[in-house]
């Protein structure tokens, strides 16, 4: 029996050895599979927002749907990117620089609790308030716009230092109802937003070049900003009234009807760090815009705009307005005049 025992014992030990061998190899396989899964998920998440992935894994059928939401849409754009890319030449260098630029932009957006919806060549389209809604989404979007301009500045300093071309950046922001959803089909999906507010943001950004402003947003953004300020004022108990009011000094640039649309939008620019004279000038400018429309008091407007000019020599916005007021003084517009300029270009 002892012999049998020894035999059986040996068999068992062999069995154990084999088993442990299997355990190791399976543990390895499991580890590899798990890592692969994580890797795929991580890679995926860089292309598609995480919440979309999560939702899709929960409910694969329900992803092709749309719903309406109030969001702030932000577009950033690099002027003359075609020329810049030709200047850089080498594709790897180009993409590497572009990626660095994008990283800076994306970091800003994420820091302000927004998400990057997509890149359109050199443009970044970001959304604020599309997921978890916060009261100050619009404020955050405007801050993000300004942050992006500052980040672009820093990026450009780096570029200059290394003898590389600068990426001049401008930002457009709009606010309103958009349709959010997974659009597309099984072969190709895109999680994005559609709606005319989206186009408006793009047009707003396009106007930066026309009006020589780094950032332009629409009237809906402005109204929302003021609303937030009032709300924050209330929160602070009213003592910081002055401070809150000047949180986001805005200057109304113009009143335009963008190409392809019937309705007109007021467009504004904004500056976080307004010095004393600038602040004053902006108040005057905004008052002058009132005189211009709806008051049609062109001479008053001109006076005010000229004061602005004195405070800010070379200020384009007021200069443009002076010209226009003079034009309307000479040829007063008809009664149907809506006070806005029709944009002929995108």
């Amino acid at each position, binding site marked *: 029996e002892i012999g*049998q025992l020894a035999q*059986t014992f040996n068999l*068992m030990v062999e069995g154990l050895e084999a088993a442990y061998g299997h355990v190791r190899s399976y543990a390895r396989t499991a580890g590899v599979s798990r890592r692969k899964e994580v890797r*795929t998920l991580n890679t995926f998440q860089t292309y598609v927002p995480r919440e979309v992935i999560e939702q899709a894994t929960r409910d694969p059928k329900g992803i092709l749907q749309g719903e309406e939401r109030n969001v702030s849409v932000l577009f950033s754009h690099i002027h003359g990117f075609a020329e810049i890319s030709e200047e850089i030449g080498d594709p790897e260098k180009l993409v590497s620089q572009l990626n660095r630029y994008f990283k800076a932009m*994306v970091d800003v957006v994420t820091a302000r609790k927004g998400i990057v919806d997509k890149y359109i060549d*050199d443009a970044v389209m970001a959304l604020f308030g599309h997921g978890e809604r916060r009261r100050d989404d619009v404020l955050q979007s405007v801050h993000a716009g300004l942050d992006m301009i500052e980040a672009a500045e820093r990026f450009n300093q780096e570029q200059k230092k290394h003898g590389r071309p600068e990426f001049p950046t401008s930002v457009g922001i709009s606010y309103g109802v958009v349709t959010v959803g997974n*659009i597309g089909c099984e072969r190709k999906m895109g999680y994005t937003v*559609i709606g*005319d507010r989206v186009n408006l943001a793009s047009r707003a950004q396009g106007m930066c070049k026309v009006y020589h402003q780094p950032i332009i947003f629409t009237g809906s953004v402005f109204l929302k900003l003021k609303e937030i300020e009032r709300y924050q004022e209330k929160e602070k108990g009213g003592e910081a009234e002055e401070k809150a009011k000047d949180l986001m000094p805005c200057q109304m640039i113009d009143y335009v009807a963008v190409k392809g649309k019937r309705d007109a939008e007021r467009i504004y620019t904004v500056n976080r760090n307004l010095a004393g004279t600038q602040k004053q000038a902006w108040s005057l400018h905004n008052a002058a815009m009132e005189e211009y429309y709806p008051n049609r008091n062109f001479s008053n407007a001109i006076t005010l705009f000229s004061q602005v000019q004195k405070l800010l020599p070379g200020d384009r916005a007021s200069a443009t307005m002076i010209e226009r007021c003079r034009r309307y003084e000479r040829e007063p517009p008809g009664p149907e005049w809506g006070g806005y300029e029709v944009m002929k270009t995108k």
Partner: protein
Amino acid sequence: MSIRLKIILIVLPLVVATLLLTGVSSYFAASNGISQVAREFLAFKSSQLRKHAESQWTLLVENGLTGRPEMVEATREAVASYAGSLATSATELTAAFASDGSVAMATGDLALASGEQEAVAALAAAKNTDYLTVDLGGVQRVGKGFWFEPFAWYVLVTEERATFYAGVNEILLRTLIILGVSIAAAVVLVLVFTGWLTRPLKRVVGTMEKIITTNDLGERVEVEYHDEIGRLAQTFNLMVDGLETAYGQVRSYAYQSSVSRQREKRLRNFFQMYVPKSVIDQHLSSPHGGPVAENRVIAMLTSDIRGFTTISERLRPEDLVTQLNRYFALMVEVIAKHGGVVCDYIGDAIKAFFGAPDKHEDDALQAALSAIEMIEALDEFNRVQREEAAKGGSNVEWRIGVGVNYGVATVGDIGCEKKMIYNAIGRVSDFASELEGSTKKYAQQAIISERVRREVRNDLACRHLDIHPTGDTGRPTNIYTVKRSVEGAEREAWELHNAAMGEYFPGRNFAKAASMFAKVQKLLPGDVASSMMQDRCRRYQTASPPPGWDGAEIGETA
């Protein structure tokens, strides 16, 4: 050979040998003892008789009566009766023999057989005083004798051998019985005991074999005692525990592995909806990331839905997305069929490219064919739209514009860790968008660039629409619309139109061109492209373009 047997083979002989030894030695001791006693008693009797005889004769001698025969006779009788009184058992016999062996006196009946007398005579002659065995009267006897001179007797005190040795025989019997019983008992005990010892061992072995044959790791061995076998059983159980755990782990890992693989597969399938498969594969195979950026010649296709903003305003978001997705499904199917990669949706616009990640000889042709088929697919889409509208839905027919260009673009993964897109950027892409944008102006559904035309002119029919001042290279470039083929009047019209374009530029024969365009108008009533060119030619007839004119519409800003 089993352990039990071994133990039995060792222990049993030992036990039996011991028992036997003990039995035999005690038998011999006992039998010797008894024999000794019997003999000594015989000797005692013999010596007592002798003493008595001698004392009687001495009496005679002292009294000087030895000459008187009747006294001697009386003494003889006295000795004989004394001898008789010595007998303690019925089988004792004391006899005196003459020197010739004849019986002189006996305490019982005695008749010597023939040979016996001689034997006795010999003993008498030898005056034998030892213990001896002699046959007397046919009965074997044990005795001790002496020669008594005065009577000339050889006296023998005897006992029947059988009686003499009866005690011994009894002892022998008893010993044998005891021996037998104890050996039997020993055997039984050994058998039982070894069985009891080896049973746990058998059990362990049995369980082991069972586990090995049935591969059922749930079995354990009972630990009955804390001896080596008990420890063996314990250790065995531990080993089986170990094995069970190990197999459990194997199963769980295998399960995890398969679950992970499934999840990864599902994830990747979903992923492929958003990003081209080969891009994903590159990501997963290379350690640091996806495809490296490079300049490649690709065909870019951009499509857009006319007046989408207006359309979308009139729809509920669910309906909007539903219709949009139905539209996309059709369009993307076409593009995929021709080997294109849909890079992105920008609102209602589709951006796709052909030639990356995999390059083909006919990328431009495939892109152009896609454009044509997308327009054809739109008819299918609109048919459904009409059906839905008839049922009371808010569906309207859609119109699209498609632009196709061909050239070098920078292709690769663009973005940062948080957000990536596999994209193709460059003037090629921008110009494709422009072409698409100009479809409205020329009232065409698809417009391709000169570079595309060069690739497709043998396969598709092209109509020269205009000259774009900058194209994507900064130099003026021709733009065309395209169809699979044109027949009859349409074919004539297209050929005429193309010829007219030549007259327009570089021919500068505006009058001729205008009339040719007029003819095209007749062949294709309501044709916008030719009527536009006709007007332009008329204008340039009167206001001639400056020297160095590139053929593009003057005053047209790019």
